[in-house]
């Protein structure tokens, strides 16, 4: 059931503007048309008994507890399935109803264990509540008949237990898996007395299609589906609303607590991004926060071959500051810098970039977006005028054509994917452009109209050929373009894409996509109604990443698919606060709010606020920091929450650069790959210990609330403040809300944002200012942020990363549901049960040619390096393409990726690496060296007594 702190109103809300007034038990209540009588009653605090109804799911009408009397209606209608009508008169309590309800409960309890006192649901069980509410005193059937009390428990899932002996077959779990999640892993098998919940074809939950999202657990009104942590710990005594620290959906959760211990995470039913849903990571995979690998005390060492030494905070900060100052004195002002990450809150990111700019005196600050969506920032700024997506997630419910390009939402943005799937099951059409057959292409009740299975590296060729169709077949929304866009840029672009070389027929040889499919997809997108594009790193992580983003914006403008709900350009930002870290100006070239450092007016604003002169030249991006380190110009680095030694491409290049530096300060939870090269380790906080805000892919700023004190004794922003004071730039915030207030004062798109306002509204989508006091769900309504939309010519330039006889295959990379990013968090949870190693997906033809069978060890070599992975032989990849994930450092996925990057932003071209695959019998040389180095570093850590110990 819902969280202990939430009231279940029975059936979903309706959002129409037409209102209906009815009378319930003599009380008048006015609700939107389409609302159920049950929900209308709940809204005026009349609780109608229910078991099969829950407000997260459509009414089902099976338990017959919620029957009511309605004047003029025959019999006793179910209030859950009866919509309100004007002037309706409802009676919810009388003798007849009471007798019926008691009878229903007698039947339920005649086949139910009577162990309430030792049951995990004791105190929060709807069946127990209903037995109390109907005044059940006896069960006249007795207990001697056949029953289900000896049904066996299924404990296969690491996070929840299924106990069928307690099941009342209300079907809430089945409906949740269908309506909310869209996986349809559950069903009711058999009928009558033999009805029972079955996962897949009556297999264990772990063996079924279940993705462990927990929607069924949340929907279950009894203890049948219970979180294992609830079984172990008992009911929580208080809860706090916070925001997930995993992906860019930014689900809102209630952390249910006993003191400082999390009992369970329950999705907030009023979450603006997730509407009460979640995935396996956010709901269950939080054990990493209290894992034994957590380092909770500061450490320093002179050389990376030295053991770590635990020191006081004063000594650690003092040492870090003196090293940074020494390096600047020796090598110059530009020889040090900082890197933030999405794991940092907005406030934490802001103070790091402030430290670098005002404390270090340069602009050498960058963030994890460099390696993922920096092309989005560049491409959308230049075409539409703002470095962010144009819609909110709910917009998808008004889309008619959903075009997913280079994204795998069921794995990377699961909760949003569930919403998208709901819309697709309602009839919206789907186009997928991906080299691989992602799950979305064919999933229960959904089949893509077109799967454009292009060769990796040919995105721009594809988008140009789609544009060619739109322009040459007269599908441009001419009136929209005339009114809203720069005409000279449009004409230039139109002439360009109309050239025969951009036709689907000519581009077919480049992309591998049949011309007929391209034509069909283009026509569908342009004429199928509201067309919305959703894209991910399969667009941005390419040498033409920014070009492709501009190509997408061109297409959306040309077809009039911007500026209202249901359409738009939607970058699926991958991480919890990557959008926020960009917004906060953690960029070498931009202040907070995407304003260039050379802009005198903006710079003077910050100089005035911070009291120091600021550099007007752009600083170093992360890849350029590495080059500068190898050149001997860049020697000091402060890294918060980012693991560049695992996540950045060409690992050997990165580690060489790190080794060339003299002082690396890592602020993190664990000894990650980058920390193995560090000289100062500052223990950081997990999201459970943070107080601040995250901004998700919708530009939605939500609160992250501390549920436990930072294990290290300091909040992350406090640590940055200590460092800033030690290097000589004073900072004296006493609460993160003050940091947000400062951001709001200095950033026009954030003027109306404050912790108080976020609390009031629940969340805020920026821009939030005088023009948009409640935030901005949909952007570019009426006009683009830059005024008129600008078309940019996007010539296809093949990548320099060419296949040849030596490296005949293309490796592309991606993510999976159960592991997150570099795996630092999820590898330290039970999610390893779903994916405990990165595997190489290889097509059967390519595998057969090389004598590779399922599970064989395969050496993968590129121009950058080589590593070894185990093979998964599958037709999900096309011949000539192999695929892997990067969640485990020992797989060395990034040893193979190269330095090729997007021309505009240096976002690495992770998605195209020329490789050869060969069957091998031992790990690669890199892996042997990695294992030795890692073991050595772990030994150097053991001498310091700095680990977290759970009480």
């Amino acid at each position, binding site marked *: 059931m819902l969280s202990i702190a939430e009231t279940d109103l029975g059936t979903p809300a309706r959002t129409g503007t037409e209102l209906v007034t009815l009378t319930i038990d003599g009380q008048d209540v006015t609700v939107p048309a389409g609302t159920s009588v049950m929900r209308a009653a709940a809204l005026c605090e009349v609780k109608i008994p229910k078991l099969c109804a829950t407000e997260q799911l459509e009414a089902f009408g099976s338990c017959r507890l919620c029957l009511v009397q309605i004047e003029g209606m025959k019999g006793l209608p179910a209030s859950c399935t009866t919509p309100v009508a004007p002037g309706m008169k409802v009676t919810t309590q009388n003798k007849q109803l009471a007798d019926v309800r008691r009878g229903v409960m007698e039947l339920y309890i005649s086949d139910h264990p009577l162990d309430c006192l030792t049951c995990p649901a004791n105190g929060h069980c709807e069946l127990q509540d209903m037995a109390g509410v109907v005044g059940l005193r006896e069960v006249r059937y007795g207990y001697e008949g056949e029953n289900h009390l000896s049904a066996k428990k299924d404990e296969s899932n690491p996070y929840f237990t299924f106990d069928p002996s307690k099941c009342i077959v209300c079907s809430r779990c089945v409906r949740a898996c269908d309506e909310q999640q869209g996986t349809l892993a559950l069903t009711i098998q058999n009928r009558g007395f033999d009805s029972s919940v079955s996962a897949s074809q009556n297999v264990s939950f772990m063996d079924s299609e279940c993705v462990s999202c927990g929607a069924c657990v949340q929907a279950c009104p009894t203890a049948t589906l219970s979180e294992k942590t609830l079984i172990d710990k008992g009911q929580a005594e208080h809860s706090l609303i916070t925001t997930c620290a995993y992906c860019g959906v930014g689900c809102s959760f209630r952390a249910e607590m006993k003191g400082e211990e999390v009992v369970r995470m329950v999705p907030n039913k009023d979450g603006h991004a997730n509407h009460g849903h979640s995935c396996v990571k956010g709901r269950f995979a939080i054990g990493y926060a209290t894992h034994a690998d957590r380092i909770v005390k500061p450490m320093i060492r002179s050389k990376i071959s030295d053991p770590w030494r635990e020191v006081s905070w004063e000594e650690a900060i003092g040492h870090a500051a003196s090293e940074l100052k020494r390096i600047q004195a020796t090598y110059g002002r530009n020889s040090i810098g900082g890197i933030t990450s999405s794991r940092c809150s907005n406030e934490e990111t802001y103070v790091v970039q402030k430290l670098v700019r005002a404390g270090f005196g340069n602009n050498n600050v960058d963030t994890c977006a460099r390696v993922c969506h920096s092309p989005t920032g560049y491409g959308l700024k230049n075409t539409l005028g703002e470095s962010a997506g144009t819609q909110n997630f709910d917009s998808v419910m008004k889309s008619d054509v959903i075009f997913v390009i280079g994204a795998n939402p069921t794995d990377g943005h699961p909760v949003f994917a569930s919403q998208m799937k709901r819309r697709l099951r309602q009839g919206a059409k789907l186009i997928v452009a991906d080299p691989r057959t992602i799950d979305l292409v064919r999933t229960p009740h959904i089949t893509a109209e077109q799967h454009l299975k292009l060769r990796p590296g040919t995105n721009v060729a594809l988008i140009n050929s789609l544009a060619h169709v739109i322009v040459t077949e007269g599908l441009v929304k001419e009136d929209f373009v005339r009114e809203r866009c720069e005409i000279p840029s449009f004409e230039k672009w139109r002439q360009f894409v109309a050239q025969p070389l951009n036709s689907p027929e000519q581009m077919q040889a480049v992309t591998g996509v049949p011309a007929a499919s391209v034509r069909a997809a283009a026509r569908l997108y342009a004429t199928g109604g509201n067309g919305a594009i959703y894209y991910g790193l399969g667009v941005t992580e390419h040498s033409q990443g*920014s070009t492709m983003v501009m190509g997408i914006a061109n297409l959306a403008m040309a077809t009039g698919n911007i500026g209202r709900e249901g359409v738009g350009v939607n970058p699926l930002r991958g991480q919890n606060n990557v959008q926020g870290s960009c917004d906060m100006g953690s960029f070498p070239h931009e202040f907070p709010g995407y304003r260039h450092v050379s802009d005198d007016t903006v710079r003077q604003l910050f100089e005035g606020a911070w009291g120091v002169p600021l550099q007007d030249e*752009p600083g170093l991006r992360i890849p350029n920091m590495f*080059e500068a380190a*190898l050149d001997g110009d860049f020697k000091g680095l402060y890294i918060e929450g980012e693991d560049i030694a695992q996540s950045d491409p060409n690992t050997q290049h990165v580690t060489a650069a790190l080794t060339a530096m003299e002082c690396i300060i890592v602020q993190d939870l664990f000894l990650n790959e980058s920390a193995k090269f560090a000289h100062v380790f500052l223990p950081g906080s997990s999201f459970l210990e943070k107080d601040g805000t995250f901004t998700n892919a919708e530009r939605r700023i939500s609160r992250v609330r501390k549920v436990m004190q930072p294990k290290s004794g300091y909040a992350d922003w406090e640590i940055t403040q200590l460092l800033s004071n030690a290097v000589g730039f004073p900072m004296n915030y006493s609460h993160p809300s003050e940091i947000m207030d400062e951001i709001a004062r200095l950033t026009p798109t954030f003027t109306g944002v404050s912790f108080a306002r976020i609390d009031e509204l629940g969340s805020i989508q920026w821009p939030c200012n005088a023009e948009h006091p409640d935030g901005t769900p949909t952007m570019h309504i009426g006009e683009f942020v830059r005024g008129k939309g600008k078309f940019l*010519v996007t*010539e296809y330039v093949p990548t320099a990363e060419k296949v040849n006889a030596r490296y005949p295959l293309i490796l592309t990379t991606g993510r999976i549901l159960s592991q997150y990013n570099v795996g630092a968090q999820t590898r330290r949870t039970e999610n390893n049960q779903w994916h405990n190693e990165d595997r190489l997906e290889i097509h059967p033809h390519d595998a057969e040619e090389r004598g590779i069978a399922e599970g064989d060890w395969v050496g993968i070599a590129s121009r950058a390096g080589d590593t070894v992975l185990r093979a998964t032989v599958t037709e999900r990849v096309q011949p000539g393409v192999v695929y892997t994930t990067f969640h485990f450092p020992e797989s060395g996925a990034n040893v193979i990726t190269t330095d090729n990057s997007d*021309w*505009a932003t240096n976002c690495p071209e992770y998605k195209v690496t020329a490789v050869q695959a060969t069957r091998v019998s031992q790990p690669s040389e890199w892996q042997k060296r990695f294992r030795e180095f890692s073991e050595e570093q772990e030994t150097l850590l053991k001498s310091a007594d700095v680990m977290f110990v759970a009480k």
Partner: protein
Amino acid sequence: MTHGSAEHLVKMANDIGNFFRAEPDREDAIAGIVNHISRYWTQRMRDKLSAHLRAEGDLSLNELPREALRRLNHLEAPAQAAR
């Protein structure tokens, strides 16, 4: 690529040039490259590439970015002289 060399800067400049070469107006194309490099490259990166070109006379830098860099240096020369 050997470090200390400017090979990676040559590649970056060529990549930028390859985007702007689609611009039919040559002046706009060069201005686009000039603008991009001055907005996103550090002074040191620009100086390093310029030094490399002067030393090596490197023809591996394509024509458009070579012209852009020449104009950038020219634009910056008065500023340099003033310091």
